[in-house]
């Protein structure tokens, strides 16, 4: 059976769908999470690298500036001390000479102070140079020491030679060593620059790599997401199509059910009317003949039995006729829609006392069987509704044909109902029948306002093709 297979298939699809839903959730979470993590890591790395570079640079620059400052102080003091020594040696006034001497001592203290300060910050690479500088400076001061105790006379005679022979060369040595330290400091600074540049370059490479990785991961993720979405969309479309097909099939099935029900009613109605009814009528005639042929006076009990049999047959004929008409009025097949509607209206009137006004001017017998049946059945159901629920006094059944459209209206002056809330009342069945014929069905009703049922149907031309379809 097709239904069983379908159900199994759907179950399989459902479980697969659940699986896929979980799988894709995990994959999307991992994908997007990974991408975000990658970007965050790249950011942290760049911050760290930049901070390292900045710190390195600052410490190197500080040490360079300290060295530079110390050397400047030293050099200036050295130059100054040179000129003071010269003044002192060439001075004849002892008072002024004494002043020069004390200034010289102060200078020496200044220089010692600068060196001591710098000593704390001397980089390892400069330690030997620094020691040499210290030694040179000590040598300078020691070479100068005897001259400081000289008399004015001694200064005058030995002074110039002492300056050019002892003091100035030593001063030159100190200056050279200081220059060496300066140069080394300069080199260190340059090396630092290069190192920073290298660090930057490697950072840039890494940044590019991370960027490329993020981009490709993002692209892959987007690709996966897009294809997944497309597949879901395709699935949804497919399912929608499936539902549409199923609905169409259902509609076809319901149409063919209605059709075959109608066929059966027609057949049973015919059979009842033409066979059973005819036979019972024949039986009645025969019973009459039998009664005529029988000597009544001799057998009154037989005459009574015959009478009973005749009554029974008469009742049966009437029952059969009513059943047949209720199943499907023969007028519908013999004379078309309008006589059938008129009969139905009379029946309802007779049954319920409700006035039923049928107006169907210009509706001929050439309407297709399907259409006539549809209109007849809808009107019949509507009249039954009116009879049972509406408490109407009058119902107007109107059929109008304009061009290729046929309009059926059933309006009553009954108590009405809320057509937005209440369904049922056979309305669904009517709407279904109408939709089988490609028509439109509408119910307008409000409590206290009566009910109007409107049906609009396309008229099919009754030609060979239409007939062939009806078979």
């Amino acid at each position, binding site marked *: 059976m097709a239904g069983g297979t379908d159900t199994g298939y759907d179950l399989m699809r459902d479980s697969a769908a659940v699986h896929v839903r979980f799988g894709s959730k995990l994959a999307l979470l991992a994908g997007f999470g990974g991408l975000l993590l990658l970007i965050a890591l790249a950011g942290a790395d760049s911050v760290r690298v930049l901070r390292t570079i900045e710190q390195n640079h600052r410490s190197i620059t500080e040490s360079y500036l300290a060295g530079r400052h110390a050397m400047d102080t030293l050099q200036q003091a050295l130059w100054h001390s040179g000129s003071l020594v010269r003044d002192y040696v060439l001075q004849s006034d002892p008072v002024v000479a004494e002043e020069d001497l004390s200034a010289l001592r102060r200078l020496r203290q200044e220089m010692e102070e600068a060196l001591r300060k710098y000593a704390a910050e001397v980089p390892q690479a400069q330690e030997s140079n620094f020691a040499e500088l210290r030694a040179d400076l000590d040598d300078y001061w020691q070479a100068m020491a005897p001259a400081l105790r000289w008399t004015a006379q001694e200064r005058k005679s030995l002074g110039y030679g002492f300056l050019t022979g002892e003091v100035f060369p030593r001063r030159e040595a100190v200056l050279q060593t200081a220059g060496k330290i300066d140069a080394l400091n300069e080199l260190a600074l340059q090396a630092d620059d290069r190192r920073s540049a290298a660090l930057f370059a490697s950072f840039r490479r890494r940044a590019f790599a991370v960027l490329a990785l993020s981009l490709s991961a993002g692209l892959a993720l987007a690709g996966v997401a897009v294809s997944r979405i497309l597949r879901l969309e395709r699935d949804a479309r497919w399912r929608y199509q499936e539902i549409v097909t199923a609905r169409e099939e259902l509609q076809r099935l319901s149409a063919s059910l209605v059709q075959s029900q109608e066929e059966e009613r027609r057949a049973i109605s015919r059979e009842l*009317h*033409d066979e059973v*009814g*005819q*036979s*019972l*009528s*024949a039986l*009645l*005639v*025969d*019973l*009459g*003949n039998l009664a*005529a042929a029988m000597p009544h006076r001799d057998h009154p009990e037989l005459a009574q039995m015959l009478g009973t049999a005749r009554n029974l*047959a*008469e009742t049966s*004929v*009437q029952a059969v*006729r009513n059943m047949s*008409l209720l199943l499907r*009025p*023969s*007028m519908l097949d*013999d*004379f078309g829609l309008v*006589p059938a509607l*008129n*009969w139905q209206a*009379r029946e309802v*009137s*007779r049954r319920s006392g409700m*006035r039923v*006004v049928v107006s169907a001017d210009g509706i001929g017998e050439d309407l297709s069987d399907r259409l006539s049946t549809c209109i007849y059945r809808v009107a019949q159901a509507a009249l039954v509704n009116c009879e049972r629920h509406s408490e109407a006094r009058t119902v107007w059944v109107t059929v109008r044909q304009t061009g290729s459209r046929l309009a059926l209206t059933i309006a009553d002056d009954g108590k009405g109902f809320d057509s937005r809330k209440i369904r049922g009342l056979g309305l669904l069945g009517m709407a279904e029948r109408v939709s089988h014929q490609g028509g439109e069905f509408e119910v307008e009703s409000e409590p206290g306002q009566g009910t109007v049922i409107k049906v609009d149907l396309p008229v099919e031309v009754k030609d060979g093709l239409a007939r062939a379809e009806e078979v």
Partner: protein
Amino acid sequence: MNKIRILLADDHTVMRAGLRLLLERQEDMTVVAEAEDGRQATELADAHNPDVAVLDIAMPSLNGIECARQIVARHPKTPVVILSMHSDESYVLRALKAGARAYLLKDSAESDLIRAIRAVRDGKSFFSPAVSKLLLEDYVRQVQDKGEEDSYELLTGREREILQLLAEGRSNKDVANLLNLSLYTVETHRGHILQKLGLHTVPDLILYAVRKGIIR
């Protein structure tokens, strides 16, 4: 006395046999031909030119109404009695329009057929009481529903007289002879009657008369 020569058409053999027995029992009737479908019935009518044709409606090849139309057209002197299972007015009206003079329900054939045949032989119409009762009831209800004045009241005494005779199936000429009127006067009266009653044809008029209980 000449017997009434009857054509009997019904596709139901047992029914036909029963009816034949019923008719043959009458001293003044004889069944001259039996047909089992409409086409055969018209052929036999041509061959035998019967006094009365009794036709079923539901027959193969040609239904009783069409058959009646053909027989009436070819043999205006042969009145047609329709014997049917159908009681609805649409059948009665169509049978009358086709020219039938009597309409009987099969289940009342045993009691009504003989009377109907004699009535049509005498130029009158006949309807099963069950049929005329249904028609009358519907008419009364219609008049009540519409709440309009019964249009019968609009007819003059002479017109009512003529209506009854016409409804019984008499021709204009017969009516003129019976009432000592000119044919032209009868035709004028007939026009007035149809107009006043809102009818169009003589069958309409017969149906009206049956509904009103003027004839039965």
